[in-house]
């Protein structure tokens, strides 16, 4: 048995082959065996593209190890290819000498044709360790005594393949067997079929000694605590539930389904017993407007979407800016413009978050850096929104939304700041109630909610007179109010943490990144050693010390999955001359790409 530090496995097959479940099970088992890991599901926008074609290939990558894992990995060391299309879609990504498990049953003339191969691709795989197995046939054979139709038996082939990988990496079968029991407890035939397929695959790999060596990846040495696996979208949903509990406010979500944000709606809809109210609206505008209505009525309000949906919400978002009500808007970014690349990741909505509204309309903009950080930033978005009576845009992306990592479960009592809603009290009635009167320090108005006696008032999108909130077209008042709304957002800087500098702080070059690229940039910076690194989670307002940090380095390189939006923002805001390192392929940065860039630039 060979001990290795970390390894990357990619499961790949047709959209209907169950690769997402296979990958999730592999990571779940791996987590429970104490490895650190990161995952990257990669699937087409089409639910079932034509079978056997490259367009229909669905993949799930897991990177796990005995060391700290920051990314789902650049190059798979093992590829499971359920058909020729899966091989074709992935072969260029593999590391040299990688192992490929081939489902030989699907490698037929017809299969080659569908995948666009002119000849049998298996003849040209020298340099790889290829394991050919008749996975479909063997699965059906293993299940021959079961009272199930052939189609259902063949459908278990993903668990057969999973079993093979479990043997190769010394994974335990129990976690998956238990999961199957939980999932198919009321469908005993399916439960038995999948369990048998899993074991059969494991035994087959053992019999053929599937690889020259059986790998063992030891447990990672990570911080003590109780851990669980979590994806970005789930973490985000839970972060808002936590904020709701801590603030004592009801959580209201108005949302309209959109990839890759819908899972947040699905997750919150499950937790009605927390008092969570989820409303699937008729469209994106209604989704955010219902949230504005609920916010006016005293809820911690939330709307979730992705780029095209956020574009539709911008008018209502500005209403919330004008009303000065709490509202969190989550943008799970995907490739754009327009419908773009719905299932692929990108960071190109930063400009829209910063500027995408009519008039002078400043807002708090935050970005989460990893799947588990979505919990923290959701909580933070709720805290700032409620305490500063202003909408907050929280940016995540498809990569961290769907990716999963192990997460040390935090202690809610000690690790999170309190959230104090600014409700009116009877004292605010003295001398007559002024809905837009503010505290001197933070310029925050108070929250008067329908049902509160004595506080009747009207709000609206028209410009308001200072303090009274009455409609006002007075020129000087408008300028005053524009200034107040801007200063209110600027004052948030006193309530957010200072920017942390990581890496080699004494280096001459500073790498800047934001959002979901933290894992790969952090890994590259750690490996390269001779650069400093800041990863920004607070984009508006920016932490107080950002300017001095930027001015501290001879060279600033901003790495982002767009054409340079943060770079341009920093250059114009701080008059620096940062350069960009950009990628817009719908894919995350690979560590080796970043390393190559650093070797060239530093």
């Amino acid at each position, binding site marked *: 048995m060979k001990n290795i530090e970390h390894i990357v496995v990619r499961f790949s097959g047709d959209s209907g082959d169950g690769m997402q479940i296979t990958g999730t099970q592999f990571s779940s088992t791996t987590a429970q065996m104490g490895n650190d890991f990161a995952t990257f599901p990669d699937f087409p926008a089409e639910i079932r593209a034509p079978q056997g074609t490259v367009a229909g290939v669905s993949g799930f990558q897991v990177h796990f190890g005995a060391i700290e894992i920051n990314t789902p990995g650049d190059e798979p060391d093992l590829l499971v290819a359920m058909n020729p299309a899966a091989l074709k879609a992935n072969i260029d990504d593999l590391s040299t000498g990688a192992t490929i498990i081939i489902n030989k049953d699907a490698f037929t003339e017809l299969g080659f044709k569908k995948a666009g191969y002119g000849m049998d691709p298996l003849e040209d795989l020298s340099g790889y360790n290829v394991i050919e197995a008749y996975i479909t046939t063997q699965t059906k054979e293993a299940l021959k005594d079961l009272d199930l139709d052939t189609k259902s038996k063949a459908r278990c082939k993903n668990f057969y393949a999973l079993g093979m990988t479990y043997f190769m990496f010394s994974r335990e079968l129990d976690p998956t067997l238990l999961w199957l029991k939980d999932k198919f407890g009321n469908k005993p035939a399916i439960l038995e079929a999948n369990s048998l397929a899993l074991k059969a695959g494991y035994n087959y790999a053992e019999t053929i000694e599937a690889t020259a060596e059986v790998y063992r990846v030891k447990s990672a040495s990570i911080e003590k605590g109780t851990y669980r696996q979590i994806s970005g979208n789930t973490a985000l949903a839970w972060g808002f539930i936590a904020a709701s509990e801590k603030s004592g406010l009801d959580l209201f979500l108005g949302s309209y389904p959109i990839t890759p944000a819908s899972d947040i709606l699905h997750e919150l809809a499950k937790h009605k017993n927390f008092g969570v*109210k989820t409303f699937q609206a008729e469209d994106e505008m209604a989704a955010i407007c219902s949230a504005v209505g609920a916010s006016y009525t005293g809820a911690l309000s939330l709307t979730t979407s992705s780029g095209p949906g956020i574009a539709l919400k911008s008018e209502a978002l500005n209403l919330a800016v004008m009303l000065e009500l709490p509202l969190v808007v989550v943008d799970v970014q995907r490739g754009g413009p327009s419908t773009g690349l719905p299932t692929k990741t990108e960071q190109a909505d930063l400009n829209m978050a910063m500027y995408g509204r009519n008039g002078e309309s400043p807002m708090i903009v935050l970005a989460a850096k990893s799947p588990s950080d979505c919990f923290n930033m959701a909580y933070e978005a709720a805290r700032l929104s409620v305490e500063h009576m202003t909408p907050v845009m929280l940016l995540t992306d498809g990569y961290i939304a769907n990716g999963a990592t192990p997460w040390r479960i935090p202690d809610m009592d000690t690790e999170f700041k309190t959230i104090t809603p600014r409700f009116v009290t009877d004292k605010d009635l003295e001398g007559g109630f002024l809905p837009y009167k503010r505290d001197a320090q933070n310029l925050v108005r108070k929250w008067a909610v329908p049902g509160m006696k004595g506080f009747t008032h009207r709000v609206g999108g028209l410009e308001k007179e200072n303090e009274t909130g009455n409609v006002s077209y007075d020129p000087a008042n408008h300028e005053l109010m524009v200034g107040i709304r801007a200063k209110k957002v600027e004052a948030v800087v006193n309530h957010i943490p200072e920017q942390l500098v990581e890496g080699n702080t004494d280096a001459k070059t500073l790498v800047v990144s934001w959002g979901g690229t933290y894992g790969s940039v952090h890994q590259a910076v750690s490996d390269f050693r001779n650069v400093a690194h800041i990863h920004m989670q607070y984009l508006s307002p920016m932490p107080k010390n950002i300017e001095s940090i930027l001015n501290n380095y001879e060279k600033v390189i901003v790495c982002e999955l767009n054409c340079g939006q943060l770079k341009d923002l920093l250059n114009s805001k701080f008059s620096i001359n940062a350069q960009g390192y950009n990628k817009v392929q719908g894919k995350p940065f690979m560590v080796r790409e970043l390393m190559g860039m650093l070797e060239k630039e530093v």
Partner: protein
Amino acid sequence: MELKKKDFISDQENKWCPGCGDYAILSSAQMAMAKLGVEPHNVCVISGIGCSSRFPYYVESFGMHSIHGRAPAVATGVKLQNPDLSVWVITGDGDGLSIGGNHLAHILRRNLDLNVILFNNEIYGLTKGQYSPTSRKGTKTSSTPTGSIDRVFSPAKFAMGAGATFFARTIDTDPKHMLETFQAASAHKGTSLVEVYQNCIIFNDGIHDEFTNRKKRDDTTVRLEAGKPMIFGADKDRGLIQDGFQFKEVPVAGNEDKLFIHDPTDECLSSILANLNGSNGPIPLGVLKSIETETYDEEFHKLINHETKVKGKGSIKDLLHSGNTWEVN
């Protein structure tokens, strides 16, 4: 404490044009709110954009002048967050049927317990007089100098199509009828849509005259009353009888036992009434349709209460530790 209309009058200066039909609607609505007996702080008025949507500023209650067409969506959030509030949505023919048509359709089908008043003046007033979805074909305006070519949008038929549980029509020249209609709307459990024929004195003066003018309206409209025969005319001498899937106008004399009896719970009848447009029979005023069914807000909270009862009140700590977890020592 008995509430009066003045309890619902705010201190804001009213900026509608002198002679605008909106004043009369506001007055009747404030009267209806007072009679409803809900205190001003438990009333919430939500509007969109347009002349009619200035309404919330003039009502002493909580209120929001929101954005164009979205009032039903904002009101949905308000009502779901606090179902105890008396919620009123104010909209117009442009706000409710053009830019906000989708939201109006969906609030009607969902059936939240709130009231929608649609001011129909067949024109865009605030943007200075372009034709609207309810404008009659051939309407000449600044944007249709040679006459509009759009077919007319009927709020009544829209409401029937969207599955509204309550639809009524009233006119801005009859405060008593408006009051009764608004009271019926607020008494209805579910989304009630009230169309008000409202006069825009600047851009479309007299457009509803045939149906709202005191001298003409008795001959051109029929006042619906549940359980009563459909009789109209200045001398109450004309009536409606059923003729296949239509109504037929007949003299009352000699047809007393054939006259159609109004039943707002009969959906088939409501649809036939919605079709009457003045050219094929009198325009029906009053409650065309009123049926009782579950409200969305009721069901919504029932689900939350049920889940809480079955699973117990959730705690974030338990949620974080649910499912597969493992210890690292």
